[in-house]
């Protein structure tokens, strides 16, 4: 390798491998070898399923037998787009997103602002708010199922004590949505809380000091400094939350099984049911692709918007 040094043009050149000179053969080889393991796994197991899904959606594949089955053209898609059950489950995922996004974003912002004003006990707040997020969904479901149990559960007792009517948390549609939303807010709000906390720490302290000297009250500081400066973070938290909520499956499946009467079944459970209960692989794949396109379109739109805003603010 010492030859590399002696053949290098002038001492003024930038460091090896990062300079404008041509990359050496060993550098090119190392580059290929070091990326290869990741690239192979990535192409096979992340890009692979997308391609498999596209192919499957044109065939009448069943999940019980191997092999593709008959080619059916676009008929799977026609059936999916005309299936009211698919659109109902799609609506349930959207409804879940509409119900969970506002509390998860606003609560996270509010609690993060409160926490930012307090110097002691940060570990305690971090544990209280973020610990639920690292617990598996099935544990959360078991604990909440127990707390929702009619008559003897804690939450019906609390509802009764406050004077609210006690909903049938597991047996009715509206009660089911209440149950699932409460549980989800408890379980996942810590993630947004962490994102907001990190963003608040990046606000320079002298901005607050200047405001305080000008006589701004703490409330005015929060309203006119903290919240506006968190605009970028809010848009990030919002999109991450929307994408996460649209992918809901675990909680609803485990708490309600999509019931009662499939009235809370989200779209992933619909795909799961058609693919693994009715064994219609090709049809399920077509539903997957429709849903997949919607999700990718939303995140692509957000990335595009963000990039445009970034370039326009840089210019």
């Amino acid at each position, binding site marked *: 390798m010492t030859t590399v040094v002696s053949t290098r043009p002038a001492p003024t050149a930038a460091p090896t491998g990062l300079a404008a000179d041509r990359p050496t053969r060993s550098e090119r080889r190392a580059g290929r070898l070091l990326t290869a393991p990741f690239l192979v796994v990535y192409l096979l197991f992340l890009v692979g399923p997308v391609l498999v899904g596209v192919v499957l959606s044109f065939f009448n594949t069943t999940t019980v037998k191997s092999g593709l089955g008959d080619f059916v053209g676009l008929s799977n898609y026609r059936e999916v787009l005309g299936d009211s059950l698919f659109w109902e489950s799609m609506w349930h995922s959207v409804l879940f997103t509409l119900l969970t996004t506002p509390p998860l974003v606003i609560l996270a912002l509010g609690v993060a602002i409160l926490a930012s004003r307090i110097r002691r006990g940060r570990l305690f707040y971090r544990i209280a708010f973020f610990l639920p997020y690292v617990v598996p969904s099935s544990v959360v479901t078991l604990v909440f199922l127990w707390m929702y149990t009619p008559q003897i559960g804690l939450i019906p007792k609390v509802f009764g004590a406050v004077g609210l009517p006690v909903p049938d948390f597991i047996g009715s549609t509206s009660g089911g949505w209440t149950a699932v939303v409460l549980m989800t807010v408890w379980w996942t709000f810590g993630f947004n809380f962490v994102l907001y906390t990190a963003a608040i720490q990046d606000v320079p302290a002298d901005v607050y000091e200047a405001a305080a000297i000008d006589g701004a009250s703490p409330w005015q500081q929060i309203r006119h400094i903290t919240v506006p400066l968190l605009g970028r973070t809010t848009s990030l938290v919002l999109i991450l939350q929307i994408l996460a909520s649209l992918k809901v*499956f675990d909680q609803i499946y485990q708490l309600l099984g999509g019931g009662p009467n499939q009235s809370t079944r989200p779209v992933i459970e619909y795909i799961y049911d058609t693919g693994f209960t009715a064994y219609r692989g090709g049809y399920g794949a077509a539903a997957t692709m429709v849903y997949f396109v919607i999700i990718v379109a939303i995140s692509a739109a957000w990335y595009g918007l963000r990039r445009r805003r970034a370039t326009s603010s840089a210019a």
Partner: protein
Amino acid sequence: MTTITQPRPAEPKGAVNGAKLFNRLCAVCLTLFALIWLVPFVWALITSLRDDASITQSPTSIFAGGWSLDAYSTAWDNHPIGTWYLNSLVISVLAVIFTVAFCSMAGFALAFLRFRGRGLVMAVATAGLMLPTEALVLPQFIEYRSFHLLGTFWALVLPSVAAPISVFVFHSFFRGIPTALIEAARIDGASWWRVYANVCMPICRPAVSTVAILTFISSWNSFLWPLLVLSQTKSQTIPVGLASLVDPSSPQYAEVMASSVLGFIPLIAVFLVFQRQIVQGIATTGIK
């Protein structure tokens, strides 16, 4: 990143009493809120220590009937919890090892090396950040079946290795290393492999721990994919095994809560030991 743990500068010295009062009010609200947030954990723990008869008779008087650890031993005897633990552990550890190794190698190459296809790899990995993998379980299942990977641990390890986000975490950490250091190592005769393994990896400990912990937690907690891939009871993971305990017809509250407590204790331990890295990891991967 160290800013996260720094105390917040509040009001300057000599601030009006109003500000102090306001902060005290904030503290009270926040503490109340945090206590409410801890209720489900505490409630599960208390229930697991009671017996079913006294739970049903007087659900809210927590001292009725006395406390015991019986529910834990029944839960342990009735369900293969030990096997579930072992499965989860093996899968998560394998996922961590392969993810850290493969993604750091790719991140290193993308940060420092020029080779044909570099731009393409970068573009493909960036596009991968947007792919909703959870939505693709069905084609994923068919693909793994045709590779005869269903029922194996590999089926659970490989999806977490194919995570472009981990590559980007390493990539951004490696970019922070001064190039002079790498040049020096190269002049000393170190191969690229040695530069990666002996120079860059030790410097990037924070990146390693971020990726390792987040990979561990997400692969320990994943539910739908293991539910599909491992269908036999003996080879289930903790989340899938615990989900099978839900039986509304004959509720055994204490036993179910004891199992849940056993399910969240390891995560509490991981969280308490690594909470700083976890929180920093979320902050770095979320706000890129």
